[in-house]
């Protein structure tokens, strides 16, 4: 009863979901982990890099599907890309008076789309670079070659004539990977600044499932 009263008293402001739904939370942290792993720890490629990349593809696909059919706060319609509103929000933030939003704030929404776009570009160029061979096939090939059976390589799709395309793909892959890391850094900084301005820990709803500590 007091809770209801307090809430109406605080009224007018729209309080964002606390917590975010479990699918949003889990996909968020899995992507973060994958970006750290593939972007910083095992940049070079290799089987693990490909496994994780395919995992990102799955997680991203699920999150995008959730953006169409999930609960209201998780849907694209709750945070349409609106550059003008994003700039207005950043201006409010600089003045220290950002408004509350039900889902991502407009600047955060742009960040979300930039992150998803980069992830899509990186995974798709990654597929081009590996001839879209699944990590299972790659691992099998590697094992066969290690066992001395070179015919496994001959069975692989011909690679000769699209070598140029692959080089371009690799270039794009690397540029967007660096771009993604920069975006991730900005994202973390944005959350920290917004948390200070709103005097509310924005990390908690994404991290934990409970409303109360």
């Amino acid at each position, binding site marked *: 009863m007091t809770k209801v009263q307090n809430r109406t008293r605080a009224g007018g402001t729209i309080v964002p979901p606390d917590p975010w739904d479990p699918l949003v939370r889990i996909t968020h942290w899995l992507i973060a982990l994958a970006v750290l792993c593939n972007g910083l720890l095992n940049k070079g490629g290799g089987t693990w890099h490909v496994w994780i990349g*395919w995992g990102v593809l*799955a997680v991203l696909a699920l999150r995008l599907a959730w953006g169409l059919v999930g609960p209201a706060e998780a849907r694209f319609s709750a945070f349409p890309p609106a550059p003008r509103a994003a700039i207005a929000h950043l201006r409010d933030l600089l003045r220290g008076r950002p408004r509350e939003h039900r889902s991502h704030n407009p600047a955060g929404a742009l960040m979300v789309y930039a992150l998803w776009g980069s992830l899509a570009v990186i995974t798709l160029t990654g597929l081009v670079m590996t001839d879209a061979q699944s990590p299972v096939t790659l691992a099998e090939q590697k094992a066969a070659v290690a066992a001395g059976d070179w015919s496994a390589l001959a069975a692989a799709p011909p690679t000769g004539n699209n070598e140029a395309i692959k080089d371009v793909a690799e270039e794009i892959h690397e540029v967007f990977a660096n771009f993604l890391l920069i975006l991730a850094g900005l994202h973390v900084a944005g959350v920290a600044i917004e948390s200070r301005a709103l005097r509310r820990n924005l990390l908690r709803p994404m991290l934990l499932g409970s409303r109360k500590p």
Partner: protein
Amino acid sequence: MTERRKKSKERRSSVALASFLLLQATAAVFFVGDAASELFQDPGEPHSVFEGLVSVALIVGVAVGIWQLRVTLARMAAQERALETARGSLADVIDAQFAAWKLTPAERDVGLFALKGLDVAQIAEIRGAAAGTVRAQLTRIYAKAGVSGRAQFAAWFVEDLLQAGLEMELPERQRA
């Protein structure tokens, strides 16, 4: 307490559902990718047809999982809303009844604290009044409500919520 426990149980189950959904989606992507590359290499093989079938099953499984999670989350949200409404309407009922008993503003405050389970000393501390004053106010409240004491006063509001189960056993009650 049980309400809270039930809620956390439901929340855990939604987390489990989401985790399982992710595992399923990941498996589907790996399997479909592998099956597609094999289908590309030698189409029409019975093996490829079989893998195609499994792919479809996996994708349908993911779709069903998405739908299930959506339903679970919607139900949790509805329960939360219902609980808030119940809390809110109980507050309305109490307000209306206090007005009907013609309690003074001070008595309403004290009555509300009493309903929340605070004892005389605590109420006196919150209101910055003497314990004797609070005791006198409570006595007046009970008199106006026509109840014998605190237990009956609290029961007055709870009884409605429990009535469904006891209707047959309790005699008709007189209300002020």
